[in-house]
């Protein structure tokens, strides 16, 4: 018996050692009102942890470390928080600006870049320690600083971003972090409000608020500068009021098309990727905010701005038309697909829920509680250019 006790003790302690956690099927959900984020598991449909102390998350965005261990949360108040998904804890946090809108991680995963409204510009930090590596004020026109939007990572250890007030696109090369090199493209269009980069990292496309069309920069050959696509579209029509800006991170490239939210029209625009011409304008229920492609490109899920923000519509790319309208609940803020697209998670702010749909049957398969959820980010973004 005496010999048995230590053996039993050992066996019990083995059971008490937790199973190592894997991060490939984890996600981060922003709770915009209480400054907390959830860590969720998409395989189990479970909330794993609630992390507090992330400051003002009334608008927030997330990128993941190369090893999928850390989520970098960019908060509205300029907070940059490195969250450890293995230990459910904040690894490091800094406040780097007055008002901030988004960020990106470099090609090699070593640098985090943040795009700021106040002071207008981009700051680059070490992904490891969050120490400041570079500070690029978005200066234009005699020393004025512009709000910076639409920052993405690009191949060649670059970041690309747009200056809302200046109407410019800049390309920041960080191959030598001690000597950051900036290439500026001026007069690309009025008030670029957001941008995306194509999944292959070739085309940077900025949506324009101040005039029709979009600005396109071909990163394979920037010598030609930015080109205007769809310059005539909707030019003479009365614009419908826009109660929330479309968000272009989720812009969909599917089949041979780029699908984008129209601005000031209740349409999803289908643009041919070779000629950059409009192929179709799909009428939808309201001002689209997110237009997101399922990973296989067969479906596009669309949510809308106030006052149509209780709806989601699903477009079938095979015939480029709306196949289904869903009502997940009040105030749908975001949608995120699992890595191979069998599920989509929908954030429903006013119902304080995450609603999970099966994308094949378009039926609801799970609900999780979340306080005023906004952005949902799955860790598989760690390996996608531009995300």
């Amino acid at each position, binding site marked *: 018996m005496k010999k048995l006790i230590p053996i039993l003790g050992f066996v019990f302690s083995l059971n008490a050692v937790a199973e190592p956690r894997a991060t490939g099927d984890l996600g981060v959900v922003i709770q*915009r*009102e209480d400054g907390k984020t959830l860590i969720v598991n998409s395989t189990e449909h479970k909330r794993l942890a609630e992390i507090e102390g992330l400051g*003002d998350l*009334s*608008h927030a965005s997330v990128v993941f470390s190369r090893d999928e261990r850390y989520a970098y949360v960019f908060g*509205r*108040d300029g907070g940059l928080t490195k969250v450890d998904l293995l230990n459910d804890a904040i690894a490091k946090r800094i406040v780097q600006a007055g*008002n901030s*809108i988004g960020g990106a991680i470099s090609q090699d995963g070593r640098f985090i870049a943040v795009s700021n*409204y*106040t002071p207008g510009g981009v700051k680059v930090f070490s992904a490891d320690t969050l120490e400041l590596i570079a500070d690029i004020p978005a200066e234009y026109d005699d020393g004025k600083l512009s*709000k910076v939007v639409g920052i993405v990572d690009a191949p060649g250890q670059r970041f690309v971003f747009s200056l*809302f007030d200046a109407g410019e696109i800049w390309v920041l090369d960080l191959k030598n972090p001690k000597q950051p090199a900036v290439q500026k493209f001026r007069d690309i269009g009025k*008030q670029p*409000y957001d941008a995306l980069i194509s999944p292959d990292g070739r085309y940077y496309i900025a949506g324009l*608020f*101040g005039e029709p069309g979009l600005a396109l920069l071909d990163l394979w050959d920037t010598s030609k500068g930015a080109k205007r696509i769809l310059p005539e579209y909707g030019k003479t029509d009365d614009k419908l*009021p*826009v*109660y*929330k*800006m479309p968000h272009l991170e989720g812009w969909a490239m599917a089949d041979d098309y780029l699908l984008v939210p129209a601005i000031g029209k209740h349409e999803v625009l289908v643009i041919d990727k070779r000629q950059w011409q409009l192929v179709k304008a799909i009428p939808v229920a309201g001002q689209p905010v997110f237009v997101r492609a399922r990973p296989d490109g067969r479906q596009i899920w669309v949510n809308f*701005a*106030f*006052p149509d923000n209780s709806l989601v519509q699903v477009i079938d790319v095979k015939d480029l038309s709306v196949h289904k309208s869903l009502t997940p609940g009040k*105030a749908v803020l975001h949608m995120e697909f699992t890595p191979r697209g069998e599920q989509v998670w929908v954030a429903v*702010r006013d119902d304080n829920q995450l609603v999970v749909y099966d994308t094949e049957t378009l039926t609801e398969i799970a609900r999780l509680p979340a306080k005023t959820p906004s952005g949902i980010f799955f860790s598989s973004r760690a390996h996608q250019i531009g995300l």
Partner: protein
Amino acid sequence: MRKLLLLMLVSSTALAGEPSADRQNTLRNMLKHDCGACHGLTLKGGLGPALLPEALAGKSDDFLADAILNGRKGTAMPPWQRFINRDEALWLIKVLRNPEH
């Protein structure tokens, strides 16, 4: 008849003055989330300018009500007159100037 007239009188004064408690809740929610979408949930600004008392100090009620109802051309501020009337806009301005804690 008298009761009807009295009711009409009471309800019309209510319309001319403060929004009902229910409506106030709806307006506050709109302020937080729909105005907040651009002005920040904390109203400290975002794509749109801050709406804190200091930021509004130099601007008249008329100017602000016009901005809310009709939007501001050349900026991202849309017109909200479809959703709120002038009295409600003025009530919102009062709330913005005197935030309760």
